[in-house]
């Protein structure tokens, strides 16, 4: 009797806990979710984040509040989310910088990109582009490589240790050329100097360079993705000249490690639904971003693959920041 009672009581307790668990999952989210964007407002990550947050808010039935925590190449924002309460109410718009490059480059690691985060969804891949000022007498990637072997050239990037800088370094090592790297504080000033022909070559995000390519003020030699970008079918992939060359920027949602799987699932499903919305699809298309909208497992593997891919490039380019 006693035994049965105890067993019954135990079962009851277990059932109660189970129900509570279900109830918690169903009620998530019951208040506003904060999306930390680890860069200043107005940049490409910010734009992707705000478009997605807007649509996801409708899916979740709760407002997603965007908070820009810029600084230290995205590390400050990522660090903040890594240390936040693991309840799903604080999430991060991670990028190739926060979850692959910074952890490889920084000597003092402020967070661990794998252990400190629960992956939610890989949202989009954004191509980068290799472009030149039209006054530079080259029309193809091969001609640029030939010219670089003959005379000294320089290329502009959005800063030291950024995905664009490393795209350039990867290009240099695969093409076997030396081109001087000129870092800027962000993509805008770098682009200005290439448009003014102060620096002849640039690696930039395709979205930020696209209007200049269309208007002919920049000549695009190649996109950095393995295949051509649908928005610029006439621009070849660099991989057509240098087989195996592939880089891109990406945006993905992360929650702090230890977030309940139910909450992660709710967020991932909302992200997936948001990315399937025709209006969002159209915006991302204009933005030259390729929609992935993966689940948590794919994102976890993606992070590992990216770290493996970039490690030799970072070592070879000898980039390290304290």
């Amino acid at each position, binding site marked *: 009797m006693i035994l049965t009672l105890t067993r019954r009581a135990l079962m009851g307790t277990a059932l109660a806990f189970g129900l509570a668990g279900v109830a918690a999952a169903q009620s998530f989210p019951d208040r506003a979710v904060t999306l930390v964007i680890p860069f200043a407002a*107005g940049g490409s990550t910010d734009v992707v984040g705000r478009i997605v947050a807007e649509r996801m808010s409708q899916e979740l039935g709760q407002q997603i509040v965007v908070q*820009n925590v810029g600084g230290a190449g995205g590390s400050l924002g990522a660090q903040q989310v890594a240390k936040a309460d693991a309840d799903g109410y604080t999430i991060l718009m991670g990028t190739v910088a926060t979850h692959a490059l910074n952890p490889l480059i920084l000597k003092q690691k402020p967070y661990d990109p794998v252990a400190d985060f629960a992956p939610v969804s890989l949202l989009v891949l954004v191509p980068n582009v290799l472009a030149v000022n039209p006054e530079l007498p080259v029309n193809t990637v091969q001609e640029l490589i030939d010219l670089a072997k003959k005379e000294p050239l320089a290329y502009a990037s959005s800063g030291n240790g950024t995905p664009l800088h490393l795209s350039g370094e990867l290009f240099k090592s695969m093409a076997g050329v030396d081109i001087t790297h*000129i870092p800027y504080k962000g993509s805008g000033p770098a682009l200005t100097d290439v448009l003014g022909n102060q620096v002849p070559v640039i690696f930039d995000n395709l979205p930020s360079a*696209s209007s200049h390519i269309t*208007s002919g003020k920049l000549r695009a030699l190649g996109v950095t993705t393995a295949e051509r970008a649908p928005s610029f079918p006439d621009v070849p992939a660099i991989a057509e000249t240098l087989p195996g060359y592939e880089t891109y920027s990406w945006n993905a949602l992360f929650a702090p490690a230890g977030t309940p799987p139910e909450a992660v699932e709710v967020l991932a499903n909302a992200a997936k639904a948001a990315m399937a919305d025709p209006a969002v699809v159209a*915006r991302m298309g204009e933005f030259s971003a390729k929609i992935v909208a993966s689940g948590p497992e794919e994102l976890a593997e993606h992070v590992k693959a990216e770290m493996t891919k970039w490690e030799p490039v970072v070592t070879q380019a000898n980039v390290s920041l304290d």
Partner: protein
Amino acid sequence: MDLLANLAMGFSVASSIANLGFCLIGVILGTLIGVLPGIGATATIAMLLPITFQLEPVSSLIMLAGIYYGAQYGGSTTAILINMPGESSSAVTAIDGYQMARKGRAGTALATAALGSFFAGSVATFLVALFAPPLTAVALQFGAAEYFSLMVLGLVMSVALAHGSVIKALAMVVLGLLLGIVGTDIYTGTPRFTMGITQFADGLNFVAVAIGVFGFAEILRNLEDEHEREVMTRNINRLFPSRAEFREMVGPILRGTGIGSVLGILPGGGAILASFASYTMEKKLSKTPEEFGRGALAGVAGPESANNAGAQTSFIPLLTLGIPANPVMALMIGAMIIQGIVPGPSVVTDQPQLFWGIIASMWIGNLMLVVLNLPLIGLWVKLLTVPYYVLFPIIMAMSGIGVYSVNGNPYDLFAVAFFGLLGYVMSKLRFEPAPLLLGFVLGPLLEENLRRAMILSRGDPTTFLTRPISAGLLVVSLIVMVLVFLPQIRKRREEVFTESDA
């Protein structure tokens, strides 16, 4: 004729009831946040970005632009009344504007600022409409070497900002340069003087430093002597300038507008330099340079016109190239992309309604601001009659919120506290904060461009002399330097110095 037709189209877009409404909301909001110390246009526009989703692209950009130039107006109000510049460009206004307020001429100073800004805004808007594409070509001529020489010119001119000892002014410029070094070196990635604090990896926050050395230092000074402040608030003169004062401000306003319009189009420090440059010029041209720093009308009229003209013309690189001249413009680009408009050279041709609508709205917005602000001056001046023990905690709290809202970085608040104390010590020792701020703003640009120019020229320093624009700027710097150190001018300076000591 094209221009007229385009402008007509622009006005028809901008004067729809909805767009007039958004323009009004923008300028009112801008004025308010400009008046609240610390909360700048950058933070406000960032907070409002999500709302712009729901609006028409033209309406949202008209509203955001209104916030931006509204804040320029409002920012000078706090600079004049409580010595608290919220934006780098109003730091110069604080020098003479606040002195005018202390002498009971707050109303005149505010009216001058409003009228000068309106005139400059109108002229600059017209320039944007007329010359946007050719002016962009000029801006693109500026490479690293040219920027370096421009910064040299700016630093040389900064010495003229001081109204006391030249040596002390130089010391402050150097201190500013050193403070500007804090942060990650962009060429090597080495953190410099961050004391191991990651939050300072991107350098010290300008708003934090400015609010500290100007604002908090002023509060500390005022708390020392409550009595003096009461005297100041009782002598409020009439609000509107007299005929003589009008005559006095015409020249500075015209010159300030010119300087501001030209420098505003340069991406990076251009607009910041404009108000400093105008101040220097007025001081050099003035028959009574000893008045500067003690409430000279020209010291308010010139820089205020220059910074407003610069604020308008900084839209040129944005609208024609899609390149931001300052953080606010970067946010405008974000707002455009969210709306599905890719900023760039194609905007003028693909979206003429948007382009000309924004330009027309700028003029309408400036008109609204002057109509709003002139009657409000009386109200702002009344603010000075609020007892200080009520006013100063409010100022401190608002500033704290404002500084924190820029980056959400608590270390910025520590910086405010530190620079407040530093500013207080400086004022006790009769060091001026303005040259420090100029050094702080220009220093990083000077270094960045010097090193970039040297990398591009492969270590050949003659690049600064062989490039014509750069050489020209260096020659002007030399001339300014000679003027500063010419014996007679120097003598006059010393007279001023002894006088102020006496």
